[in-house]
């Protein structure tokens, strides 16, 4: 009988209790007390030792996911860290998405730092709760806590007595928080989830269509809104005529929402004319019927191709020196051989499969929104500010995100929905069409670069001069911030790791004339492309293998004191003592990707491999891309990655990020380009703004994760930067043509 009760699962238990058998079941259970196994307690009991965790008397564990899920698996991985330290049965854990609230700490799901920042916090949260459950058991048994051990949802003692987490919940809730020294984190050998595969918590809901994304929330009486926005960023409505739109059956209201104009903002809508209708189709037809006359404003002459050449002219002359060792100009003059090249990367759009969207309900001095947002706290503040409510009256519910890539960290669309709900008096579902998304994005900064590398007579590289010109993200909202920040330059430029005596890293000014924002791996895209390609040319000039060239230039194994090399160096907001720039780890991923790819093996005609390596978001990544060119068409049979990201919490999801990062890299390398003429984005949908399809993506991607007990670092963005240069270097081996512009034209 005892065994039978013990094995009863939670669902069966709940079902049984629902037919009022609680007493009976518990009664039988308690009658077995001499066997010392008590699993459940008062079902209404709750043990919530921190904001992320609740254990109730039935032993049900709720863990809060406070970071946004946009495909990285973070909604699973961080709760898993807490669950591991807590020693729970993962089957009994329910993961609940947090609303935007400062009490959870940082919720800005951006910059590939969720695990890095919260790994220690979640471990401590779990370990502290575990300790309290053990203490509660010790008190029950009147023994010392050192004789109690939590294991798989239960605390056991040396006599084999067992108390379930459910039974202990109300008792643990009465205990004081343990002292710091009493909380013992697990050793890596004790991990039960960390470092092992766990599927994402929403997996079955996703494949059955039940998962709830931005527009899937059901809200009684909700109307659909679409906005016709100024075609030129910073433009305004001069006049509009809503007569034809109002004739469309189902259209309820048409009105203007004002624009902040210029400068543009990272958290404010662009303004425009809103159509509110009973359903989506009526809203679309209504919007098509609108007639609007625009004032295009200060960006009405922006031509992105022309501006690229303006930036390139600046990249070819001396800029503002941001890092300097020795005298690169002089060394270049004296060099016996030189490699000099210019590189162009154009604007890119995020184009997440789910366009920006939000539900908002303004009612009785409060507002509630449901949004696929990467940054619910920013959304909360921005919504409150826009509709004139204090934060306490603003609730931001975070749905699943149908992709983010940096786009959905900006809360402009959430604010837009909130304003429209307040103005219209309806609960509002705001939809952005694909054209809205592609034409009113916060674009990746276009970038012109010029790199000069000098070699001495012995073939050693003794000069490196890197000039980069691109509109800083800061210049979107502040016209004076027209020089890239140290943080933007530390994405490949200032953190150049190669052991070269004469170095000059320079920038020049540029201004954002569309909304510029961060896109998956940000400035690393431009800089890793240019550096990765130029180093391949250096290898050729030196007459050495490209992978060996990287290892040669890296020099001796060491921690590089980047702070000493440039005052402006930024280590992704971490101290170098905590997260060093370690060349041995960089060297190792290069060695590992060589092994993984069979680097150096002979390839059939028309096929070749290329390599590039890049550290970003504190992770070390090397990438080999294998290409095959057939009838002028580029195929990527295989991509290989070696990554050192410290502890890989959920290695299977880390691999998925690299598989996906390769595809994102293939889009950047082969497909995607935004051009702007007279301030208007020329692309509108996936026919003109192309992204990689299954036919463009690597057929296979192999990923080697370096086993490590180092602190965990980023995995969402780091796969992207080295992919395009590895691809370009592979293509050069086939075509003999150097590629200096993305996307590639073969």
């Amino acid at each position, binding site marked *: 009988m005892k065994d039978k009760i013990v094995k009863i699962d939670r669902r069966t238990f709940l079902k049984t209790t629902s037919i009022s058998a609680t007493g009976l079941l518990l009664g039988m259970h308690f009658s077995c007390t001499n066997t010392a196994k008590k699993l459940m307690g008062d079902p209404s009991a709750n043990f919530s030792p921190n904001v992320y965790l609740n254990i109730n008397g039935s032993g049900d564990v709720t863990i809060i996911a406070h970071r946004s899920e*946009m*495909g*990285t*698996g973070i909604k699973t991985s961080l709760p898993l860290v807490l669950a591991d330290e807590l020693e729970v049965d993962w089957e009994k854990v329910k993961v609940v998405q947090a609303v935007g609230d400062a009490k959870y700490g940082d919720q800005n799901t951006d910059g590939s730092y969720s695990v890095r920042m919260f790994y220690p916090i979640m471990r401590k949260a779990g370990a502290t709760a575990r300790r309290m459950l053990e203490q509660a058991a010790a008190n029950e048994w009147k023994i010392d806590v050192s004789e109690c051990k939590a294991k798989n949802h239960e605390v056991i003692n040396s006599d084999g007595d067992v108390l379930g987490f459910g039974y202990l919940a109300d008792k643990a809730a009465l205990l004081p928080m343990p002292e710091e020294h009493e909380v013992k984190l697990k050793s890596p050998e004790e991990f039960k989830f960390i470092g092992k595969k766990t*599927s*994402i918590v*929403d*997996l*079955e809901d*996703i*494949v*059955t*269509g*039940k*998962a*709830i*994304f931005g*527009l*899937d929330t*059901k809200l009684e009486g909700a109307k*659909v809104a679409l906005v016709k926005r100024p075609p030129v960023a910073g433009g305004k409505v001069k006049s509009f005529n809503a007569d034809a739109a109002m004739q469309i*059956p*189902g259209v309820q209201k048409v009105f203007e929402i004002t624009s902040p104009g210029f400068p543009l903002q990272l958290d404010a809508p662009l303004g425009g004319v809103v159509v509110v209708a009973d*359903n*989506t*189709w*009526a809203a*679309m037809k209504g919007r098509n019927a609108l007639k609007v006359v625009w004032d295009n404003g200060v960006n009405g002459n922006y031509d992105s191709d022309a501006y690229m050449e303006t930036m390139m002219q600046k990249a070819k002359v001396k800029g503002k020196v941001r890092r300097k060792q020795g005298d690169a100009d002089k060394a270049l003059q004296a060099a016996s051989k030189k490699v000099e090249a210019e590189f162009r990367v154009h604007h890119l759009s995020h*184009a*997440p*499969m*789910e*366009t920006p969207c939000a539900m908002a309900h303004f009612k009785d001095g409060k507002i509630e929104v449901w949004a696929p947002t990467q940054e619910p706290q920013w959304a909360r503040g921005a919504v409150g500010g826009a509709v004139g409510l204090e934060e306490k009256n603003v609730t931001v519910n975070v749905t*699943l*995100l*149908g*992709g*983010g890539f940096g786009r959905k960290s900006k809360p402009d669309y959430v604010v837009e929905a909130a304003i429209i709900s307040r103005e219209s008096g309806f609960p509002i579902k705001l*939809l952005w069409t*694909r054209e809205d998304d592609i034409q009113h994005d916060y674009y990746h900064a276009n970038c012109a670069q010029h790199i000069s590398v000098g070699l001495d007579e012995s073939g050693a590289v003794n000069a490196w001069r890197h000039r980069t010109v691109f509109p800083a993200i800061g210049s979107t909202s502040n016209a004076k911030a027209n020089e890239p920040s140290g943080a933007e330059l530390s994405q490949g430029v200032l953190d150049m790791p190669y052991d070269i005596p004469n170095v000059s890293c320079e920038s020049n000014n540029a201004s954002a004339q569309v909304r510029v924002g961060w896109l998956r791996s940000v400035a690393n895209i431009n800089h890793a492309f240019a550096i990765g390609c130029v180093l391949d040319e250096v290898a050729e000039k030196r007459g050495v293998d490209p992978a060996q060239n990287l290892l040669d230039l890296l020099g001796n194994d060491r921690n590089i004191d980047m702070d000493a090399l440039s005052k402006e160096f930024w280590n992704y907001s971490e101290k170098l003592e905590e997260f060093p720039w370690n060349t041995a780890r960089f060297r190792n991923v290069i060695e590992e990707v060589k092994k993984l790819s069979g680097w150096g093996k002979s390839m059939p005609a028309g096929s070749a491999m290329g390599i590039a390596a890049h550290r970003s978001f504190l992770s070390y990544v090397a990438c080999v891309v294998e290409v095959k060119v057939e009838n002028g068409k580029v195929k990527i049979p295989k991509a290989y990655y070696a990554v050192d990201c410290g502890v890989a919490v959920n290695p*299977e999801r880390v691999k*998925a*990020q690299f*598989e*996906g990062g390769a*595809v*994102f890299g*293939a889009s950047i390398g082969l497909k995607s380009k935004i051009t702007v003429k007279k301030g208007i984005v020329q692309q509108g*949908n*996936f*026919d003109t703004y192309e*992204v*990689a*399809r*299954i*036919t463009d*993506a*690597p*057929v296979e*991607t192999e990923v080697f994760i370096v086993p490590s007990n180092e602190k965990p670092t980023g995995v969402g963005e780091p796969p992207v930067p080295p992919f395009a240069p590895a691809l370009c270097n592979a293509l050069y081996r086939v075509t003999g043509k150097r590629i200096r512009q993305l996307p590639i034209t073969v």
Partner: protein
Amino acid sequence: MSAFKFTLNQKEVEVDAAEDTPLLWVLRDNLAMTGTKFGCGKALCGACTVHLDGQPVRSCSLPISAIGEKKVTTIEGIANGELHPVQKSWIAEDVPQCGYCQSGQIMTAVALLNNNSNPTDEDIDEAMAGNICRCGTYVRIRRAIKRAAKEGNS
């Protein structure tokens, strides 16, 4: 507005909609069936894929008036008591990242396997090229289709 009757996931449904309303919005707005997703509105990305008499179609570009007597199947309708073999293989290969495009990917894959029980890489490319996944789950989509084919044939 007109009344339209059609068969959705083996049940008769009736909706009141403008006759040019795309099936996607009828599903989502009129019937609150939100498993089918909006991605582009122009039949370019495949996120809205459903079956019309078993064939994959882009519901964002199919007016409700064109459905007539044909049977519509959505992601909510392919499991039959238990998950569809393609859904199972999607789970076994941990295909989804954000998951948004996966309803459409699965519907296209189911149709592919209904027509071709043992697709080659080229067959998969051809069938799946209309479905964009911005997270880049293509290597797993390919593996999951092959797994479902193998398990279906064994």
